[in-house]
């Protein structure tokens, strides 16, 4: 009990005397805040990108690609194959008995980024009338759906924010043809919000693809119907297609970019953390040095070495915790929800928002406390072992 009281007393003294070492303590707080800020900005980028892809696609929607294609852009599916797929088992059918399906053509077109003014690749998707029904969460936030057979396009909400020339009512020129933006759609921040949609036959005509499409989307009666669909395709020599659930397809698309961001973020943060650690050690050694008489006095009064140790450690942890929280707060205020885009695996831009999740905040605070723990441990050891006589002899 006595030792506990002593610890509380020493901690209180340490924390209350912090203002005496204001600038040096502040430099530790800022250093830790910046380290945590850099780490979290990178991790929030990776998390935001991953969320955009993971949030795309349902387990009940099947996506068929030519066997061997990893991407929509290099798959081909013929009209005959599309007709055969429509007869597969386990599909949700419309009241007239036809399958709820959408054969789609995915081509890459140029658009100018608002931020940089540079040309970038964006996807133009030729879709059928069932396309919106095959995507959970599809809503038109402005305008109307496109008319089949016309040069009308609807654009994803994220795309209009990031790229110029695709606002509602504008008439962009693509491939020598003038298009009209008649609607803007949202889809819970998924990849599709980075796309332009137009009528399939119109896109096929413009890009001279005949009746070829690249993917077929279907709604399954349940997630377990996927295996049946794959079997159906394997048993039919004219098909030879690979069936994915939309969810697994998009989850597989994120790993490369996410890893790249994380591989860049962690080493940088650790290098910065070592620098901040040096700063924290410095601050705490100075703190012990400036209080050496005080500590010696307490020891004379019968205080043990252990409370002196804990007191210094707590001071260091408190500083780094404040720094960690400050860094988290700044990233949250400045970057959470910040929209940007990068080149995805489909060779087109994917617009995503930085996302600071609670799990990431925990990682940031843990890094801060690690700096505080190591930065406080050795100075605390010195405080505990301070020879009383020497402390008085000084200065």
């Amino acid at each position, binding site marked *: 009990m006595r030792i506990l009281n002593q610890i509380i007393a020493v901690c209180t003294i340490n924390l209350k005397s912090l203002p005496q070492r204001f600038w040096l303590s502040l430099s530790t707080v800022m250093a830790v805040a910046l380290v945590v800020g850099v780490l979290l900005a990178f991790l929030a980028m990776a998390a935001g990108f991953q969320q955009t892809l993971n949030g795309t696609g349902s387990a009940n929607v099947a996506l068929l690609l030519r066997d061997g294609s990893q991407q929509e852009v290099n798959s081909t599916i013929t009209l005959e194959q599309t007709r055969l797929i429509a007869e597969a088992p386990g599909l949700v059918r419309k009241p007239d008995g036809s399958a709820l399906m959408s054969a789609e053509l995915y*081509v890459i*077109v140029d658009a100018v980024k608002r931020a940089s003014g*540079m040309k970038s690749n964006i996807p133009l998707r030729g879709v059928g009338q069932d396309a919106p029904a095959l995507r959970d969460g599809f809503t038109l936030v402005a305008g109307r759906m496109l008319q089949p057979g016309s040069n009308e396009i609807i654009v994803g909400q994220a795309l209009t924010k990031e790229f110029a020339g695709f606002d509602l009512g504008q008439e962009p020129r693509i491939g020598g043809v003038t298009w009209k933006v008649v609607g803007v759609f949202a889809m819970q921040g998924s990849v599709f919000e980075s796309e332009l949609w137009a009528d399939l036959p119109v896109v096929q005509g413009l890009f*001279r693809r005949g009746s070829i499409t690249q993917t077929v989307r279907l709604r399954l009666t349940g997630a377990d119907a996927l295996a049946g669909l794959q079997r159906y395709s394997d048993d039919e020599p004219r098909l030879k297609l690979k069936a994915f659930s939309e969810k697994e397809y998009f989850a597989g698309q994120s790993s490369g970019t996410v890893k790249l961001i994380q591989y860049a973020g962690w080493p940088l943060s650790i290098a910065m953390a070592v620098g*901040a650690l040096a700063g924290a050690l*410095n601050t705490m050694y100075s703190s012990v040095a400036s209080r050496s008489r005080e500590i010696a006095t307490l020891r004379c009064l019968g205080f043990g070495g252990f409370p002196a140790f804990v007191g210094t450690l707590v001071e260091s942890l408190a500083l780094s915790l404040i720094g960690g929280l400050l860094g988290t707060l700044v990233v949250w205020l400045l970057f959470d929800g910040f929209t940007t885009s990068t080149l995805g695996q489909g060779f087109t831009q994917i617009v995503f928002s930085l996302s600071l999740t609670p799990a990431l905040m925990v990682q940031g605070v843990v890094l801060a406390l690690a700096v505080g723990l190591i930065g406080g441990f050795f100075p605390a050891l010195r405080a505990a072992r301070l020879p009383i006589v020497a402390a008085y002899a000084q200065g």
Partner: protein
Amino acid sequence: MNDFSIVLANLFRAKLRTSLMLVAIFFAFLIFGVLAGVQNGWDNIGNSGADNRLVTTNKINFTQPLPISYIDRIRAVEGVEKVTYANWFGGFYQEPRNVLVTFAVEPETYLDIYRSDFALTPAAEAAFLADRTAMVAGATLAEKNGWKVGDKIPLNSNIFTNKSTGKRVWDFTLVGLLEPAKEEANPNFVLFHHKYFNESVTFGQNTAGYALLRTVDKSVNAAVAEKIDAMFANSPAETATDTEKAFNKAFASQLGNITLIILLVVGSAFFTILMIVGNTMVMAVRERTREIGVMKTLGFRDGRIFRLVLGESLLLALLGGLPALGLAAVMLGMIRQLVALPGLELSPPYLALGLLFMLALGLITGLIPAWKALRLNIVTALGRQ
């Protein structure tokens, strides 16, 4: 005892404190050095292109092909010296993950336009031109995949199907290795005959992925580009012609604003050490107040005291920063082996910038304590506990 030894003695009187500051400075400059190298490689992506090379692509996007008939029409444009073309093959070797940058090219013109960038031995070039199933590959790429000249190599395409087999695989003979002919060049790709490609694919015949041309001089670039694009305006395949540099830059910028990210990270790292070192220097000099009073009593002039303190912070910045830039250069050399991005190095301008930052750090962190020391009144100094 000269001034430099006084500075040294002052700097290392608190060995632990000084080493900790050196560590902080070291890591900040290490981050600067490595990221400056990355930025340099990034800048270089655009600059490796020659001044008089233009790229003509389909206006819709560079992934859309052009009719092959366009090539001869471009050749006829005044100011165009040489034209070649290439198709993206979507090649991979064995595993779909092992993607190879593979182009089907018209060999004579392609090698001619890139002669200043990539070197092929005359024997290898003759072998390449003679055999339409031949391919050449970058030397490092061939080594990575364990290929030797003379090997039969099956390459897969993730786009095209081979008419003769119905499979998406083509057999090639490796006849030569491409070496970089200048420092910034990076032949990290595979080339084979467009003729072989054209006669064996099931679709996409008689198309060129994009056209590459050399103009007679860079001064005619704009006029040539304008003429080509005007020639195909309102045709089914309109074109966009740009310099090779601008094209490469635009492509690289699709990844994101790398420069901004680097700027923010380096900025944070420097701000951190500025805080740490600045405060510590103030503290270190304050501890020496009495001593400075003694020095002034002994006749040290104010200016000399000022220089001594400033010299200390400058020396600290240089001792921490210089080895860091050295290590950064070594690390960049190691990364360069892995990612084969030429220009991934500390170029002289960035090296100079690093030195400038060291001087700035030393001056800024030393200025306040040096000024305080200069203004110090002897009586107060000696009186202070």
